[in-house]
């Protein structure tokens, strides 16, 4: 079959349908993409994506804060060990304290040794023994706090052996029992947090997929028209993928920005609530109320993932629809 030539201008027999129409100065193009933009379904999709991204970022931020707080508690407590010297008859306590300090400081990684003076020890015992305590009259053990440099790991076994050998009545408490408990608690909290985050992401992914497919259902006619005018699968997929990537990005950015704004507000509240019972309680659990750089990077990743997921879902939905339309053997 030969390709027909272009329709020619109407002949005498085929009079023009109308006289040459007056040209309008209005633009010929609507400025809109082939995929309809501002529909109720797409607005609802942005709203749903924004909510899910907000909740996912909130969960991620909270997990990030709890995780860094737990690490901080663990690190704080493991950066300090205590030497206890029990008094004994005929013992020169001050000499023993100096000796224990010298021994501790001789170990690599020990930055400082502080002996609790009489006044501090009395204050420590005040809740049990009352005020006006005369330590000289009581066999009260003396405490020395040994500060450890960041990242250092002194040989506590050797330190303990030397102290017990050279300072009578001295013992070393490296808080191992507490550190172990805190480690277990921190790991559990972070595990629970990440489990909640993973559940949240699963809910986000499912919601985004279903909301996108819902919004796509309204575009079925557009896909059919494009198909019947000869658009290939790649062209149609490209149109929808680009459109839904923008919708996803818009929704995810709104959700993420709202979550970041909430964290900033909580940070400001926490700053002005220092030294109040509520502020102390909150900062004990969450630290500085900042998700930290990793938390913010995670939120950025959530934004990209949600937008990408929206685009991919639309592409997949369109692809399935076109497959059905194009496959003659399935079109019964």
């Amino acid at each position, binding site marked *: 079959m030969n390709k027909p030539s272009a329709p*020619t201008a109407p002949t005498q027999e085929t009079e023009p349908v109308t006289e040459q129409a007056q040209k309008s100065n209005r633009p010929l193009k*609507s400025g809109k993409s082939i995929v309809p933009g501002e529909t109720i379904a797409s607005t609802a999709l942005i709203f749903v994506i924004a909510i899910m991204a907000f909740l996912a970022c909130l969960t991620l931020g909270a997990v990030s804060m709890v995780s860094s707080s737990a690490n901080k508690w663990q690190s704080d407590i493991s950066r300090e060990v205590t030497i206890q010297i029990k008094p004994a008859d005929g013992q020169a306590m001050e000499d023993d304290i100096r000796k224990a300090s010298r021994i501790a400081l001789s170990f690599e990684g020990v930055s400082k040794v502080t002996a609790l003076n009489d006044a501090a020890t009395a204050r420590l015992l005040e809740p049990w023994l009352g005020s006006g305590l005369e330590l000289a009259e009581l066999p009260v053990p003396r405490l020395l706090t040994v500060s450890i440099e960041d990242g250092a790991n002194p040989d506590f076994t050797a330190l303990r052996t030397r102290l017990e050998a050279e300072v009578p009545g001295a013992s070393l408490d490296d808080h191992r029992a507490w550190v172990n408990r805190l480690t277990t608690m921190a790991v559990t909290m972070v595990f629970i947090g990440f489990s909640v985050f993973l559940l949240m992401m699963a809910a986000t992914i499912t919601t985004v997929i279903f909301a996108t497919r819902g919004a796509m259902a309204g575009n079925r006619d557009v896909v059919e028209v494009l198909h019947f*005018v000869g*658009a*290939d699968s790649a062209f149609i997929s490209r149109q929808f993928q680009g459109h839904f990537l923008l919708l996803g990005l818009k929704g995810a950015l709104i959700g993420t920005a709202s979550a970041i704004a909430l964290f900033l507000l909580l940070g400001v509240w926490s700053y002005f609530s220092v030294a109040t019972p509520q502020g102390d309680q909150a900062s004990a659990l969450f630290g500085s109320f900042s998700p930290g750089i990793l938390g913010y990077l995670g939120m950025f990743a959530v934004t990209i993932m949600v937008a990408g997921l929206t685009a991919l879902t639309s592409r997949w939905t369109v692809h399935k629809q076109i497959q059905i*339309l*194009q496959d003659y*053997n399935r079109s*019964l």
Partner: protein
Amino acid sequence: MGREVLSDLSFQVAPNSFQFLTGPSGAGKTSLLRLMLLSIRPTRGLVHVFGQEASKIPPRQMPTIRRKIGVVFQDFRLLNHLTTYENVALPLQVKGKIEANYRQDVTDLLDWVGLGDRMHVLPPVLSGGEKQRAAIARALIDQPDVLLADEPTGNVDPPLARRLLRLFIELHRSGTSVVIATHDLSLMDQFDARRLVLNSGRLQIYE
């Protein structure tokens, strides 16, 4: 299995031919057009398009086949968020043509179908007849080898129907095979052409 809509049909649409497809409402005109458009498959029998048996055409080749077939749907199927100009230009846009290269062709065709002053408006503000002409222009813009039109004059008054018919005749003279599904006898009486008459799912051909 449901009621058999069409049975024992055998016919050919020759290159550069003109035919009316007619019959009472519910006779199966639209179903037959959909078979020719490859949007449905017959439960029995074969459809050949441009020398190829339809079930042997790989899906990736379908867009190329469809670009050779212009369709005017009974319900127009215009995209309501795009202007008349954009709707008519759609077949060229999906082929990846640059707008500067087809702008003049689209405006000329819209002038030709009498929508020169309606190019910039959205379909919801067009009248039934204007939508009809926009749908026809969209089907013609890429100069298809075959034009399938389902009740193309169903929404217009008789004078406009006569004008549209002249448009199809002009297209036929320029080399396109035209199939017009209609039950408008007065329209068919205006042009001596082959008639495919469907009745209760059976086809009679009057050359």
